[in-house]
């Protein structure tokens, strides 16, 4: 009996020492159980390092043209040169360097899209769930409208209004992701504001902003984080798709989708300019999705094994 009590006491004591560290430790325990997630995480970090250091480690300029060395195959093929590791494109630009700089554009685009859609989505959703009434109805109907138009078409139409380019593509994609965040944040806000702790801080005189952002928001973070990891990967895909359709990043930017669009005509003659940018997109997105799966396992208590 006393033994049982003892261990229970120990648990509460250690939890009191540093709840955050305890939480992180528990998070890592569940996250690292999923081997794919750990592999995804390390590959993702690898790409982040490349993206950050692209200026330093890329052997050539991503946009400087050199007609003398156009269409050189990767180094292991006949005619390949070791200084052009993955070969060159028609304008003699080094493919490896362009891929490295492409990582920078894609990750940047993914981050910006998440920041925009998460910020506005959470603000709209929390306020809708908190204030209710006609305001909520209007916000939710607008989100329904956005959802009823296929995301890529919506993005294309928005880019047509704003004009092609990476910046406008990012804004357009952010708008198409808004509804997911708004719905999540609103649902959490509705359930959370009915809880006792919200009532008690209301009684304690907390202001509206404080209630929404400091009291309610932290309690609905888990689904938002999972959604963010999901839309990070789709944002990279959609940015590339817009680039491929000529509505995203414009030449000569070394964006993976744009590179694929340029490479379409060489489908039969130069496999490397078609294959490699796609492989880069696929691996990056796959790594992020693997990580997202691990995140969901670690953050969703329903999935936790006892």
């Amino acid at each position, binding site marked *: *009996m006393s*033994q*049982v009590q003892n*261990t229970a006491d120990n648990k509460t004591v250690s939890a009191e020492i540093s709840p955050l560290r305890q939480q992180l430790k528990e998070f890592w325990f569940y996250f690292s159980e999923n081997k794919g997630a750990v592999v995804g995480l390390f590959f993702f970090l690898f790409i982040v390092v490349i993206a950050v250091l692209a200026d330093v480690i890329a052997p050539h300029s991503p946009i400087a043209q050199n007609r003398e060395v156009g269409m050189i195959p990767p180094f292991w093929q006949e005619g390949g040169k070791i200084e052009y590791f993955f070969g060159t494109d028609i304008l003699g630009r080094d493919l490896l360097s362009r891929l490295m700089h492409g990582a920078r554009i894609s990750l940047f685009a993914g981050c910006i899209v998440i920041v925009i859609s998460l910020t506005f989505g959470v603000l709209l959703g929390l306020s809708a769930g908190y204030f209710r009434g006609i305001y909520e109805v209007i916000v939710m109907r607008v989100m329904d409208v956005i959802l009823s138009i296929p995301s890529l078409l919506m993005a294309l139409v928005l880019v047509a209004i704003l004009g092609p380019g990476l910046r406008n593509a990012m804004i357009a994609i952010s708008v198409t992701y808004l509804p997911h965040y708004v719905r999540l944040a609103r649902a959490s806000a509705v359930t959370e504001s009915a809880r006792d702790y919200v009532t008690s801080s209301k009684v304690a005189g907390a202001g509206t902003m404080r209630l929404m952002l400091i009291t309610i928001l932290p309690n609905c973070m888990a689904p938002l984080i999972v959604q963010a990891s999901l839309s990070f990967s789709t944002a990279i895909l959609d940015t590339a798709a817009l680039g491929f359709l000529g509505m995203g990043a414009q030449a000569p930017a070394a964006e993976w989708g744009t590179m694929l669009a340029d490479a379409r005509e060489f489908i039969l003659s130069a496999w490397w300019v078609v294959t490699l940018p796609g492989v880069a997109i696929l691996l990056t997105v796959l790594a992020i999705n693997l990580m997202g799966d691990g995140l969901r396992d670690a953050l969703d208590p329903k999935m936790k*094994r006892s």
Partner: protein
Amino acid sequence: MSLLEIRNLSVEFETAHGLFRAVDGVDLEIDQGEMVAIVGESGSGKSVSMLALMGLLPWTAKITADRMNFDGQDLLTISQKERRKIIGKDISMIFQEPMTSLNPCFTVGYQIMEVIREHLGGTKKELKKRAIELLGLVGIPSPETRLRAFPHQMSGGMNQRVMIAMMIACNPRVLIADEPTTALDVTIQAQILELLGELQKKQGMAMVLITHDMGVVAETAEVVNVQYAGQQVERQDVKGLFNAPRHPYTHALLNALPERATSKRLPSIPGVVPGLLDRPTGCLFNPRCKFATDKCRSDAPDLHSKVLCHYPLEDGMPTNNHPGVSVAEGNS
């Protein structure tokens, strides 16, 4: 030889923290027309032992036994296909939660007729007739219309009646009822128990009743198995058990019955059934036993004349030279 005989049944689960023994050396013997009750708190492995018999445990469970015989057939070595011919026909089981144990997507009639068709066959008309007959037998009013009802359209008590109808459809020889009334209202509980008792007598079934309710045991069973933390701690016929419990756990359980309370405050057993992480050494009941000695804390007891205790009780007092008899006397 008994109709159903289980000797030294153990069930182990592989968990993240190591092997967990949910059932540990359980015996069961039951004959045609007999009613055996298995009693114990939640977590004492009552359901798991019966699920093991039915072959309904997940594949992570490791089942061992010296003997597991039904009507001359060895259930341990039998193939899955052979077992399926017995399960649901000769041995069937009723579960605790009637609301979730019936499939929400199929009508009551479909689910009853399905089991008859599987084991006995018959034309659609015959099946339907039999299903109506069964629903009437378990006391469901206007069975013809109920046949087309979905489980969510009926109450918990009605669903449990349907469950019983489904499980006695093939005239089983052994019916296992796993806490059949726990999830129901008190008034319904008595009705269902009465129904089960009636059916058992009428059809001459052997019945195993799993319960944590000593009151239910007193009213229905003939033989009682008391289980604690996966172990069988005592086996007696119902009269002997209520008059002279031999294991301290049984003793404590009976003392916790309101009808038998002598003091103003209802006595309870302190603590809970040990789980995977807080398993004591020696006798598993020792942390909660008021007669526990150092021997109980170090050595696991053997089965002494169907009681798993170093010091079986007699007239509520430990025997076998228990060192602190006088102390215990002062306590109670």
